[in-house]
């Protein structure tokens, strides 16, 4: 032993390289190997998760489309004082840029312009067709003669919101605000304020669903964790069977149950508890959304709760009772704190699922049960206003991240347990 220590200096391996270097090399190879192993997963996450989210965030502020079609118009537009109508020069530039535009750029730009002021779409289309015959000015008068909308300052003022290549307009739109023509932030017209109400409704429904899931799920999970195996297995199947049933089937089944001429109301009338002409409105409103979503999301509460409760040793409770605590006190002091990781995991899971829910509110929500997800779907499919969809989605994402952050601060994320 002492022989190898005689020479001073770094320890060498048999082939004369210092041990430290050799070790580092081996470690590096290991690191690369480990990295290569996770590379497919990493690539998968980047491609299927980060890129789409990045694309979504970019879309929510992107306003280049129209600037690429009418770049010169916007240049001269910026000089306009926004009083009355713009000068002949603005009309002239607009005229030639519209007349000479190619392909589908105008179609796409007009869709965007139509979000700011309804009517741009047909105005551009009709004008482009008629501009072909016009060669020289005065353009202002000729354009107004083609369509009197060209003489309406409202249309010109609406362009002011689109001057910059990036915009916060979609985000403003998503919280019932908008830019006026000089890019000041103002409230949306009263009869078009829908998003704030929808946000509040979405949170209200999500909180209620989470709460009801917890209230219903806690005792079920407790039973599942404490009953003897043969009963608890049966109970587990009762929890899982609906979980495996198609979402649509469950939703439609609730419709049959709860509608005014449905099973529940019929039973109540038969029992004489309510009058026939006074049946309860349980379907196609917010109540229906809360009831159906609670049932659908319940397994997401029960399963994490159960897996945590299963690990709480029954000896703790016995010890507490043995030491003189009342059952209630023992539950409050011993069982509940131990089950908190499951509670928080379940609540977080249910809330996050609930806040973005779409199909159930769509089917049973009726007029006042629509949530943010439904508006995203609407703009995605019908108005093609994907910028607004992206903004709504980004706000949802931000809310979720904020919740997660707050949760981490208060409870600590290491306390979460899914099983």
């Amino acid at each position: 032993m002492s022989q190898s220590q005689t020479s001073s200096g770094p320890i060498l391996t048999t082939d004369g390289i210092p041990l430290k270097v050799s070790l580092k090399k081996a470690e590096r190879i290991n690191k690369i190997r480990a990295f290569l192993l996770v590379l497919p997963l990493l690539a998968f996450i980047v491609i299927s998760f980060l890129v789409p989210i990045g694309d979504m965030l970019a879309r929510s502020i992107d306003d280049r489309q129209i600037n690429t079609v009418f770049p010169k118009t916007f240049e001269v537009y910026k000089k306009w004082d926004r009083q009355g109508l713009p000068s002949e020069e603005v009309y002239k530039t607009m005229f030639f840029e519209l007349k000479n535009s190619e392909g589908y750029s105008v179609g796409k730009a007009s869709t965007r312009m139509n979000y700011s002021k309804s009517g741009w779409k047909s105005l551009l289309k009709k004008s482009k067709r008629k501009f072909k015959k016009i060669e020289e000015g005065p353009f202002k008068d000729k354009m107004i003669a083609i369509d009197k909308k060209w003489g309406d300052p409202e249309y010109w003022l609406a362009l002011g919101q689109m001057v910059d290549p990036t915009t916060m307009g979609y985000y403003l739109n998503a919280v019932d605000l908008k830019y006026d023509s000089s890019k000041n932030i103002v409230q949306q017209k009263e009869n078009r304020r829908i998003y704030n109400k929808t946000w509040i409704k979405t949170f209200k429904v999500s909180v209620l669903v989470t709460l009801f899931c917890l209230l219903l799920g806690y005792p079920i999970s407790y039973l599942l964790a404490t009953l003897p195996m043969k009963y608890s297995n049966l109970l587990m199947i009762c929890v899982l069977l609906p979980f495996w049933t198609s979402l649509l089937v469950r939703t439609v089944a609730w419709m049959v149950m709860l509608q005014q001429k449905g099973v529940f109301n019929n039973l109540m009338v038969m029992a004489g508890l309510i009058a026939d002409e006074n049946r309860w409105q349980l379907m196609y409103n917010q109540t229906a959304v809360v009831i159906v979503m609670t049932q659908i999301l319940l397994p997401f509460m029960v399963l994490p709760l159960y897996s945590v409760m299963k690990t709480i040793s029954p000896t703790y409770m016995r010890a507490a009772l043995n030491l003189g605590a009342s059952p209630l006190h023992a539950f409050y002091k011993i069982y509940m704190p131990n089950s908190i990781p499951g509670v928080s995991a379940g609540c977080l899971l249910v809330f996050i699922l609930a806040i973005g829910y779409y199909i159930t509110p769509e089917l049973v929500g009726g007029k006042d049960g629509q949530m943010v997800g439904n508006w995203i779907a609407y703009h995605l499919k019908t108005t093609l206003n994907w910028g607004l969809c992206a903004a709504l989605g980004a706000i949802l994402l931000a809310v979720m991240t904020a919740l997660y952050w707050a949760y981490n601060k208060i409870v600590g994320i290491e306390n979460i347990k899914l099983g």
Partner: protein
Amino acid sequence: MRKAIKAAFFGLISMAFVGSAIAEITFVSWGGAYTASQQKAYIDTWSKGSGVTVENYNGGLGEIKAQVEAGNVTWDVVDVLPDQAITGCDEGLFAKVDQSSFIDDMVVPPVSECVVPQIFWAYTAFYDKAAFPGKKPKNIKDFFDVKKFPGKRGIHTWANALIEMALVADGVKASKVYEVMSTPEGIDRAFAKLDTIKDHVVFWSAGSKPLELVSSGEVVMSLAYNGRIGAAILSEGKNFEYIWDATVLEQEYLVAIKGGNEAEALEFMAHASTAQALADQAKYIPYGPMRKSSIGIIKKGEPWFIKEGGNIDILPHMPTAPKVLKRAVIADPEWWADNGAEIHERFGAWKGS
């Protein structure tokens, strides 16, 4: 094991190739009795009919735009509404079509250069005769009058046709509806009229829902697509009655998606828009063909609608029947392409408040 996986993998790949060789085009429509009528009238009769894959969708350009932007077009021919036909053609989502063979034979001119004609369908009010043993609702005013005819009304979750009907119920002439709608006061007036039934409505979004709502007594009257009502009366023997007043006529077109199997798609569309094909479709569903000569074929062939135990005259069930047209509103897709987004937001605010 490895070999087995490899074999399975290659098997899958070759299946995908074989699959694409059989499935010539994917035809996307709205499902239900409507798609069934298309299947019988012009998919089954097409020489390559076995190569057509049929899918359902719920309207809107969202999926199509996503497919075209991602360069991964899986739909070839889609059945679209006119305002979408306009927007999609303007934005370059659809292929242009040679319209010379039918353009002079159409009841109204086509809305864009990308479409072939299909049918007129209509939003119309209806009720179950059993729900009104005494006085029966006769016009759209009665639909909006919850004092005279108490009970819930079924309406759809979007604003199209509702604005038009509300205005007619408020006394506007059917021919003047879009003039009034182009003023802000006109829209206010429509919403004020809608307010009068707001507490009495049940919303539907799927086309089969209003029939269920009326059958089960959940509502006493409802708006619905006329073809669904007709199919329920003609094929299922339901005791429904139309309220042919302020019926809002909408157009329906086929388009070919750019970047899909365009050549086959256009060939199929030519076959699916012949006067005979459109007339044949009316054997299975009471929608109105958009080609004038189709009506002639049907007139000659009456009773045209196919039913077990004897065919039935179809013209009285069509939204293009003269007595219906007299009191109908022909929907203006240009107006909706311009104002749709704003009106829908306002309608959303109205629903939620």
